[in-house]
Each structure stands twice: as C-alpha cells, then as structure tokens.
C-alpha cells in the first residue's frame, strides 16, 4: 500500500503548492496521450513551434523532397535486400531456377542476388525499386542542387547548408557506386576492375593503395565484403546524419521564398506545417513511392542474370557505371592516351588519373566553395531569405549553365559508344567533338545564357513600362495603327521590379598617403576585376519615377488599374505569414 498520495499533517504548510499543482492540471495544454507524453518529456513547446512552422509552396521546393523520399525508399528496400544478400566471393556451381546459368561457377554474392531475383517472392520487384530509387535519388539531388544554385538560395545564412548538401551529393554518388559493385555480376565486377585501375593510377602510391583496398591482388576475396560494410553501414549512417543536419538547418533558418507582394526578408509566406504541409509532404511521399514502384514493376534495371557472373577475362560492350559516375567515365574516354609517361622509375598515368581520381574532389570542391567566392566578390554580408529569379543574376546563371554544360560534355562522353550506334556516327568523331566542346562549350554557354538573361530582364523592363501586349490593334482616325498594351496590376508588376542590381566594385585607392602600394588594395583589385565580370552588364529595374513618366507618355491608361487596396485584398488569400 502506497503512502505517497495520503494527506500528511505537514501538507497544511504547503497549501499553495497544491493550488499551483491544481492550476497546472487545469491549464495543462494537452490532455490524453499527448498530455501524458508532455508530462514526461516537456516536448509540447518544441513540437508546437514545429507544427506551426510556415513553409512556402512551390513545386521547385519539392525537388529536395523527392530526393529525401527516394532515399527513405532505398533504406526500406535495402533492409529487405540485406535479409537475403550474402556478401561473399566464395565460388560454387549455380543450381537455382535461372536456366541459362545452371552449372556455372558463381560467387555467393551473385548467387544470392540471382536468388533474390528469381527464387524469393517479391525479391526482383524490391531489387528494382531499390535500384530505380537510387538512380532517381541522385537525379533529384542534382536537380535540387541546381534549383538552390540558380535561385541564390545558398547565400547567407545558408552557406553551411550548401556545403552539407554538396557533401551529401558526393556521399550519394559513393553510396550508389558501392551498391552497384555488390552483385558481382559481369558489369559490377568490371566496375570494380576499373576502380582498381583508378586507384593504381595514383602516382607513386597507387599500387600500394590498390593492395591496401583489395587486401592483395585484384580481385581477391575481400572487396565485396568491404564495399558491403561501406554500403549498408558507414555511408548510409553518414548520409542520414548529415541529411538530418541539413533538414534541421532548413527548419532553423526557415525556408527561402520566391519574391512576391507581401514577401520580405523578414517573413515566410505559405502554409503551416500542421495540418497543411504535413498532409502535402506525407502525400507526396506516397506519390514518389508509387511512381518508383510503378517504374520498377514495368521497367527492368540491371538484369544481372544477363550479365553473367564476374570473371576477369570477359567484358561486355556497353559497360558503363550508373549515370552519376558517368561524368568520370566520360572524362576517361576523352583523355588522350599520350598523357601517360614514365619518370624517376614511376609510371604517371595522366591519361587516367585526372579523370578518375582527381576530377571528383575538384568538382565537389568548386561546388562547395562557390557561395564563399560569390560573397567575396559581392561583399554582401546581409541575410537573404528572398530568392533571386535566375535572370536577375545573369553572371551566376551563366556560370551555372557553363558548369552544367561542362558536366554534360563529360556525361555524354560516357555514352559515346551508344550514341555512335544509335545515331550511326563514328565513335572517333563523337569523342573528338566532345573534346573540343569540353573547352569551348562552357564559355559559349556562359555567354549565351548571360545574354538571354539580360534580354529577359530588358523584356521585363519593357513590360513594366509599356504593359502587356494585348494583340488588339486599333486604327486611329488619322489612319495610324496602334497595338493596345494593357498595364500590369501592381501584383504582376511586383515580380518584375523587386530585384536589386549591384554595381561593379571599383578600387579607388591603390596606394596609401605616402604613395606606397597597398597590399590590401591588390586583393581589392582582384575583387574589382571579378566584380566587373559579374556586374558590368546589367539592366536596372524600373523606378517609380520612370513608371510615372511612361504612364504620362502613354496618356490615360486604357484598362483600369486596380487600386492598392484591391491588390492588398488579393493578398489576403495567402493564409499565413510568419515573422522572423
């Protein structure tokens, strides 16, 4: 029998404590199970903040969600696969139900993958979902990255999150490559063989590294168990951990939003997480899962039974890595063979090393440091929660497109053999063309993109000043024809005039008062040069004065403009505004 809740004489001295406790019982925000949990964790406050969090709505913000959901799908289906997969290279004759391989010596890894495909109920579907989700995961990561880049969402305070995202995308590729290598079929074995060669191409230490990684000469019996540990343990843990930090920062810093009436750097306009966003996002998870499951049910991926077991002597035409490693394969195909040389008794495989080993860290470093470079050039230390329209940052957009073109040249080079067959071209011509494009493609792309951006800005300017073309032609009494332009509503106009345009930074003083060259100024000169590169060509948004002048020039407006209050009323449909 418990005595804790019995009245004790001393309780009289603490009468108001009891009143406070009663108060708490009465004013407790939640009852039932939620209250029970809150009593023990005190989580209500935090969860309530989370639930009221406002998120802006735009399809391009959902690219990251696609990536997140496909990663979760990979985790779920991956668990199923680990129930059956045996990461071992021990050989024995195959006796499963796939007839054209019966009696062939295969490794346990390959046999268990065949068993998953043919002898385990639902195994092939789960395997295909796992692989398709992996491909779509990395596609979505890259699309999300492009969205963040082109809208300038990486600017202060989100530079750290950009770096996290960069590392996540690299981890996604590594994770994919490790998974691609596991089934020990002819294709994945060829991939591991290529990796072995890449490691060996590292100058001086390459062969030692290769022995270290493979535990001896290729292929050995260790590489698949090792890659398996990386694939199911280390890399997923790093991915999930970093991803959690990534999404936590989004919550902390609040989501960026596209510019629009009522949207400022100090608020977020959108819908609260609960109940709207949680329904939308939760529903979208099932859409993504459904689409991937549908694709996996009807489209074959990596038919390992066709490739046959790995054996170092055969190779198949069309041996390529999965797409996200394609750019490195393409770099290898473009690198000319004469770059290999021997010096000091070592072979320097410069026909392989730059494309296979050096390219990855270089590419991801450039991506990772971009926000810091741009910040240094602009000298902009303000926080940015409003996104740029890509056309309003012509130099950045140009750089981004140039980068995509460079990447695509390498990416398409990896498929040069298939382009040759399908387009009836010579593989040599394709390779040489791509070699040239590697150098001239990005500058041309930069130039064209920048010009398109500037002309779109110019078009926006014209639209603000003269209104939208209505397609209605009026004939005046004097015989003159005129097209009627309808003026924009303030709401329409907002998007077109909200941007700020930066002037190039100019160095005024290069020497100090005594005529001595100033070392700080030298750094500034570099900055000025880059700033000139970024901002020398610009189109200023229309100022209110210019707009006023244009209206007077056009005479009385033909269509009636909504008043400011009317515009504000249309704003009211935006339901939630969260202040910073």
């Amino acid at each position: 029998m418990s005595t804790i809740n019995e009245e004790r004489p001393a309780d009289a001295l603490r009468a108001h404590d009891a009143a406070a406790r009663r108060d708490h019982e009465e004013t407790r925000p939640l009852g039932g199970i939620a209250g029970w949990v809150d009593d023990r964790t005190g989580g209500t406050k935090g969860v309530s903040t989370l639930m009221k969090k406002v998120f802006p709505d735009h399809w391009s913000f959902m690219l990251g969600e696609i990536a997140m959901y496909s990663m979760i799908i990979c985790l779920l289906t991956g668990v199923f696969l680990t129930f059956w997969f045996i990461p071992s290279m021990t050989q024995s004759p195959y006796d499963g139900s796939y007839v054209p391989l019966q009696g062939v010596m295969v490794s346990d890894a390959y046999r268990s993958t065949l068993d998953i495909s043919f002898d385990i109920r639902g195994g092939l579907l789960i395997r295909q979902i796992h692989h398709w989700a992996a491909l779509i995961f990395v596609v979505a990561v890259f699309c999300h990255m492009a969205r963040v880049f082109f809208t300038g969402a990486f600017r202060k305070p989100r530079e750290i999150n950009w770096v996290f995202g960069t590392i996540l995308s690299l981890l996604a590729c590594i994770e994919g490559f490790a998974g691609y290598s596991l089934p020990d079929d002819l294709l994945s074995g060829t991939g591991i063989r290529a990796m072995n060669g890449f490691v060996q191409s590292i100058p001086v230490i390459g062969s030692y590294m290769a022995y270290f990684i493979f535990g001896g000469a290729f292929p050995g019996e260790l590489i698949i168990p090792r890659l398996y540990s990386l694939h199911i343990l280390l890399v997923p843990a790093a991915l999930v951990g970093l991803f959690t930090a990534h999404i936590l920062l989004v919550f902390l810093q609040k989501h960026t939003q596209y510019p629009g009436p009522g949207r400022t750097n100090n608020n977020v306009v959108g819908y609260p997480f609960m109940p709207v966003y949680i329904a939308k996002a939760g529903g979208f998870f099932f859409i993504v899962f459904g689409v991937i499951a549908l694709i996996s049910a009807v489209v074959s991926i990596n038919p390992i039974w066709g490739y046959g077991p790995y054996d170092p002597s055969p190779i198949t035409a069309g041996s390529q890595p999965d797409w996200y490693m394609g750019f490195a394969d393409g770099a290898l195909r473009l690198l000319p063979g004469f770059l290999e040389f021997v010096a000091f008794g070592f072979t320097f495989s410069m026909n392989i090393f730059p494309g296979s080993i050096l390219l990855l860290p270089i590419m991801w470093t450039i991506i990772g440091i971009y926000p810091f470079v741009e910040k240094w050039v602009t000298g902009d230390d303000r926080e940015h929660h409003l996104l740029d329209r890509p056309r309003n940052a012509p130099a950045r957009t140009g750089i981004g497109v140039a980068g995509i073109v460079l990447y695509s040249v390498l990416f398409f080079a990896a498929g040069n053999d298939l382009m040759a067959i399908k387009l009836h071209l010579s593989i040599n011509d394709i390779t040489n063309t791509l070699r040239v494009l590697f150098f001239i493609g990005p500058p041309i792309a930069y130039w064209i993109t920048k010009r398109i951006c500037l002309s779109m800005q110019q078009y926006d300017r014209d639209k603000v000043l003269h209104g939208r073309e209505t397609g209605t032609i009026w004939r005046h009494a004097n015989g003159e024809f005129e097209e009627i332009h309808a003026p924009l509503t303030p709401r329409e106009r907002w998007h077109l005039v909200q941007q700020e345009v930066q002037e190039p930074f100019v160095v005024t003083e290069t020497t100090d008062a005594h005529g001595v060259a100033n070392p700080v100024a030298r750094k500034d000169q570099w900055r000025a040069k880059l700033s000139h590169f970024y901002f020398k060509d610009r189109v200023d948004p229309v100022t209110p004065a210019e707009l006023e002048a244009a209206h007077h020039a056009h005479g009385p407006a033909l269509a009636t403009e909504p008043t400011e209050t009317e515009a504000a009323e249309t704003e009211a449909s935006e339901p939630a505004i969260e202040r910073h």
Partner: protein
Amino acid sequence: MKALAARRRHPAAIALLILVGLLVTGGAYSFAAPKDANASAAAADTVAQGKTLFLANCASCHGTGAQGTNEGPSLYGVGAAAVDFQMSTGRMPMTSPNVQAPAQQDIKFTSDQIAAIAAFVASLAPGPAVPDQQYTTVIEPGTQENNEAIARGGEIFRVNCAMCHNFAGAGGALTRGKYAPPLQGIDPVHIYEAMVTGPQSMPVFSDTNIKPASKQQLISYLHAIENRPEQGGMTLGNLGPVSEGLFAWTFGIGILIGCAIWLGKKAA
C-alpha cells in the same frame, strides 16, 4: 621382323616404301577430302552458273577473277560459308560504299543462286563450307544436360563475343562508324558462318578456337536468352546503365516533377 630387317637395304625397298606412302596418303585423302555425291556434270553446271552470276553481280568490286580490287577484297579461300553468310543476310551485294555492309531484309538472290555463287567461289580455293545441320541445330532447354550445355554456351559467349556484341547480344560500337550488329533473330546457320569466316571487322573463330560443338552451345545460349520471358519488365534495349540513366532523367524525374507541380498548384 628379322626377314624384313635383313631386306631393308634391298634396292627395291626405297621404291616400295614410296609406293606404300603414296598409296596411304592418297587413300586417306580420298576418304577425308570433301566429296560431292554427283561430282560430275551437275556440279560443273552449278559452278558455271555461279560464275555467270558472279561476273554479273560481284565482279565490279571483287574483280572478274575474284582476285579483289581497290573496292573489294579477294575471295580466294573465303569459302562457301562466307558467300552464304554475306549474301543470305543481304550484306552483299553492298548497296553503297561504306565502312561496313549493313544487313538487309530484302535479299536479292534465291537460295539456289547464292549456292551457285558459293560453289563458284569455293571452287577457286579451299575455304570453310556451309556448316552441317548437326551443329546449327539449337539445343532446347529442359534436361539438365541441355541446360548445362546452354550455360556453357553462355560462358563461351561472354568470353569471346560480349565485348563487342554486348552481354545480351544487343550489339556495340567499334571504331570509325563500324559496329558489331545485334544478334537477336539471326539464323543459327548465319551465326555459325560468321564465326568461321569472320566477316567485316569480326575475327575468325575457327574450329581450333571454338569447337563446332561449342559453337552449337553458344548459338543455343543466344536462342535461349532471346526466347526467355523478360522477368524485369521492359529491357530498355539491354544497353546497360546508359539507357537506365536516360530513363531516370526523362521519365523518372519527369513524372515526379509533374506530380510536384500538380501538388504545388493544389490549394491547401
């Protein structure tokens, strides 16, 4: 033996030995040599007919004596198998000068005419003959013995053929616009002939490289994988990860972005 040893220095011994040697060689040859049952007027007629056809249709590139010109190679020693392969698949006569003769559906000659030209070319110099039906009959899966023969054919295929023709026989690119054609839906006889004659850029896989029985297993493997149901669904051409990546970048992300746009437009 003693009596034979005593006479081995007899003056007639050498002549006798030569005689025996010639008889054995000749006799063995008569058994081993390719024979034509009616090696007479009929065969001679076929060769003559073949020669006429050859002069009318092939000589402009291969030369009137099949000795070859700048436009086409010599046909000495290519054998009947090469003629049968090239003409029955529509590769010859070549429609236009190019890096490689493509296979065509529209065959310009009857099988008798092709056989006649083949006989004429084979009469010029010895070469591989059109293969026996024994080795071009497909082994059907079913018994364990047959299944293992097919699997063995798969191993031979992967080691010798997949590097150009791709793991599923979907074909692959070679240098300067040349290519290894797809192997689906090809007559077993033509696969066999291609191996023994090495058409275009293909190397010759003689009976020493791959035994006739192994060739039969290889052909049976190709037949078996072609006639299997596709468990995984649409194959995307069996071209490997490139077509899969293309699919992910077009249909995969395309459908998902479409859904995202639809969801983004949906009012809350």
